[in-house]
């Protein structure tokens, strides 16, 4: 019997093609990692994203962490803790979206029309509902692991493993070359935090944004959790206020969803509640259509006075995911091109559901259940 030859894929996130090349990254080899590239060009093109997995110079264990952007003026206390772990493996049998290989969601780009909001058939909705149930299971399992001392990369592993266990693909993985399977956004991070070796500590807040692709449909949901150890008092009243306000903002917006509601008015309800609680609303990132595509029309801004187009009709599926800040609404992006933080370094919290408009209202497809970890806390005066 001959040994099965395992397929080898180019480690370039923008390439990902099957290859029989022998070109291996020499730095990875020293770290005990095999990263094969098609050719020198592939290596060069993908260098920036790839080098994120390289160990700190001189360290051969990968235990030592480092800040890859020492010259960047960070807006708060949070820092990236590299190296990242290598791209996680998704088994051959799992249905993958087109970006899994090279990072570009061509199908989605091609088919998204600004003013064409998909309305799903009953059959399609069944599948989206199933994807959302799976998404909720994965988020809950990941959330249960949130505790002081765990790294966001460990949470990523949990999300990744639980997702593929459910025959699903973790939608964020390689989406526009996002390197991981979940977004983990700590404290001043608004969204799109990259799981790395950062250790969660007591009193932090962390958002886990889970998206998965199951039988052709995406689910998208997130929640912000308190990192609680033995000492409950480590959670500041500011953290509780911003987290609970964000939770309530989402709830308030959902209450108004029904056929005939305009997408633009949701921002009014969200910002009103945020302002009443002395918080602000992020403008740069919006809710979005989800289902057949990870992101599509409609665009659902969360701030008041926005001029989003569109009105709700039964069968539409979209997310609302307000990002609520303790201080300024303004955001800034790290040089990793993903992590978005508040400009003043103050806290930001977010909650997200995938929703479907029904005949007379709305169904929360990604709803919590009784066993879901997290949940609201009393504000402290």
């Amino acid at each position, binding site marked *: 019997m001959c040994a099965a030859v395992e397929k080898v894929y180019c480690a370039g996130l923008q390439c990902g093609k099957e290859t029989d090349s022998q070109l291996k990254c020499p730095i990875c080899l020293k770290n005990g990692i095999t990263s094969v590239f098609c050719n020198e060009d592939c290596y060069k093109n993908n260098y920036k994203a790839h080098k994120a997995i390289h160990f700190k110079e001189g360290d051969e264990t990968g235990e030592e962490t480092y800040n890859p952007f020492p010259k960047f003026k960070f807006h708060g206390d949070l820092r990236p803790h590299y190296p990242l772990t290598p791209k996680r493996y998704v088994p051959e049998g799992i249905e993958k979206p087109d970006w899994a290989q090279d990072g570009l969601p*061509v199908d989605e780009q091609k088919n998204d029309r600004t003013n064409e*909001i998909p309305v799903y058939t009953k059959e399609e909705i069944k599948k989206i509902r199933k994807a959302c149930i799976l998404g909720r299971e994965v988020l809950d399992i990941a959330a249960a692991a949130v505790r002081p001392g765990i790294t966001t990369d460990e949470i990523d592993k949990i999300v990744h493993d639980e997702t593929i266990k459910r025959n699903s693909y973790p939608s964020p993985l390689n989406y526009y070359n996002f390197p991981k399977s979940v977004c983990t956004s700590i404290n001043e991070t608004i969204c799109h935090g990259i799981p790395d070796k950062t250790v969660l500590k007591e009193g932090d807040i962390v958002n886990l944004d889970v998206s998965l692709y199951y039988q052709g449909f995406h689910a998208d949901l997130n929640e912000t959790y308190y990192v609680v150890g033995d000492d409950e008092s480590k959670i500041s009243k500011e953290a509780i206020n911003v987290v609970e306000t964000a939770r309530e903002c989402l709830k308030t917006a959902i209450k108004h969803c029904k056929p005939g509601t305009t997408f*633009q008015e949701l921002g009014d309800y969200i910002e009103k509640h945020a302002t009443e609680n002395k918080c602000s609303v992020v403008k740069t990132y919006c809710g979005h259509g989800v289902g057949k595509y990870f992101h599509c029309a409609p665009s659902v801004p969360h701030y008041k006075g926005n001029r989003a187009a569109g009105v709700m009709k039964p069968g539409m599926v979209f997310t609302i995911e307000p990002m609520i800040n303790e201080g300024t609404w303004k955001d800034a992006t790290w040089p990793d091109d993903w992590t978005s933080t508040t400009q003043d370094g103050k806290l930001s919290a977010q909650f997200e559901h995938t929703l479907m408009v029904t005949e007379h209202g709305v169904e929360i497809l990604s709803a919590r259940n009784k066993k879901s970890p997290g949940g609201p806390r009393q504000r402290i005066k």
Partner: protein
Amino acid sequence: MSSTANSDLQAIFQFVKDAEGKFDHDLCDVKESSLGGVGVFAKRDIPAGTTLLQLHKNSIFSASNSSIANLLNDEQIDGILALNIAFIYETTVFKEKSHWYPYLKSIRIEDPQDNGKLKLPPAYWNETDKGLLHGTTLDTLFDALTPQEEVERGFEIAIDLAEKWNEEFGLEIPKGYLDITDIEDSEAIESRFHKFIAVAYAISARVFEIDAFHESALVPVADLFNHHVVQPDLKFISLFDVCDLCGEPGMCKHMLAEEIEEAKEVERKENANKISKKKEDRPVVQTLDKAVLEKLEADLQKEIQEQINEKEKELSKGKELDPDECIDMTTINDVKAGNEIFNSYGELSNVFLLTRYGFTIPRNPYDVVHFGSKLLELARNNEDIKNRAVWWSETGYDKYINWFKEQFAEEHEHVHGDSCDHDQDEEDGHEYENNNNDNDKDNDEEDMDEQYEEGEDDDEDMEEPEEEKEEDKPWLSELEIDYEGEPNASLLAACNLFSMEPEEFTNFSKEVENDHGNMERLLALDNGTTNSFLEKIIIESQNRLQNTLNSNASDGINDEQKACTKDLVNAELEILRKALLPLQK
């Protein structure tokens, strides 16, 4: 002429500010204009090339930006009809919930000074008031006193959609506009129809052509600038060539996706070729040179540093608007402090201005007097003229026009083939055509219909009726005397032809048919009979217009509209007066 109430201006300015648009209040003052309504005035001397208004295209009111954009898209409704329906929903169903409302509520379809009377275009005036325009070019050439079927069809489509959306998912039907299901009273239905027309009229008076995605839109503040017939101070700039699916300028995700797909296809084909190659041909082991790695790392550090610098700059300065994503209004002349700043809506006659915008201006050089219906009337009553007209229409006219074009080749570009007096101003006008877009450029009669075409594929329904229409007959539609009182080539030819002695006509027509007719003969105006023929039809037209001028208005229209009708008739009388002078010498 903007009829925006002064009290609404603050709401509009606030809207622009909230939308992060820029309107230069230091340079511009919006106040009452001597033309009526408000206008924009220079507070200080403004040099040419100054951008007075810049708005992101997400803050202009287009159907694509509206609350019901997706519904209109699903029904494949676009163009002006889509904009009309969107306007009605925004202002009657969504109201305060719509963030367009602070701007849109300033656009009033009722005359606040006149008991809330609807402002309608002439085709929807009562018969008495239409009498104020009888026999004018508006009536005879543009047929603008007859309601257009397309408009009524637009109303019907809007009603059907409103009912459909209501049944499908309970979207409220716009009250007082499209709620006719349970109404038996024909007056109540007519009042709704008239409101629909009034919306269309108000929109047509303000609409700007934007781009391939937005098509036409209402643009806050831009619509406050009044029209100058010959010397506008401003140009309206909007990049027309954008993706019609998402509105993005340049490389949008749709184009990108297409490009990637193409590249993948090419690669697939190349790979298919490679597979046939033997494996041994490929290099077995490759290594990365240390120098390559070092250079990569150095380049990356440089790139990151540049990115950091860029971001810091952005943070301290704030993001600039991308001009490709904006509409701009920029001065093309120096404007003196205190002067009104004018836009141009196009080279438009008063007929066009009244029909589409609801105003007229004195001494409009694009005004003409048209003789199509006059000559048709003569032909109906005189068998001889009728025969000549038929011959001219079927045989002579085409030959004449061809001859004329050859003869006056340099003037060929003047499509009208007439003596119209294109001066410097037109040249200026063309300069900003590539940026497209002041509202309209050609005052072809068809434009009036075009503005009402709706998005459905309705070619079959749009077929012209069999009946003779002037616009089908170029020889009739081009019979004009221009603003200077000069009859054009078509009119001269017709006058010569119809005033020939019978024998002369027989000979002439034969010669023309054999392609050796003396066409020059048709341009002459020194022939006594031709002269008196022209004089006669001018005087008859004068008498007719004089009657029109003396007729009384009902209270169906407001004073401003009455004044417009007088201006229009007087302008044509003045043209006829100028035309008579050389004839009566």
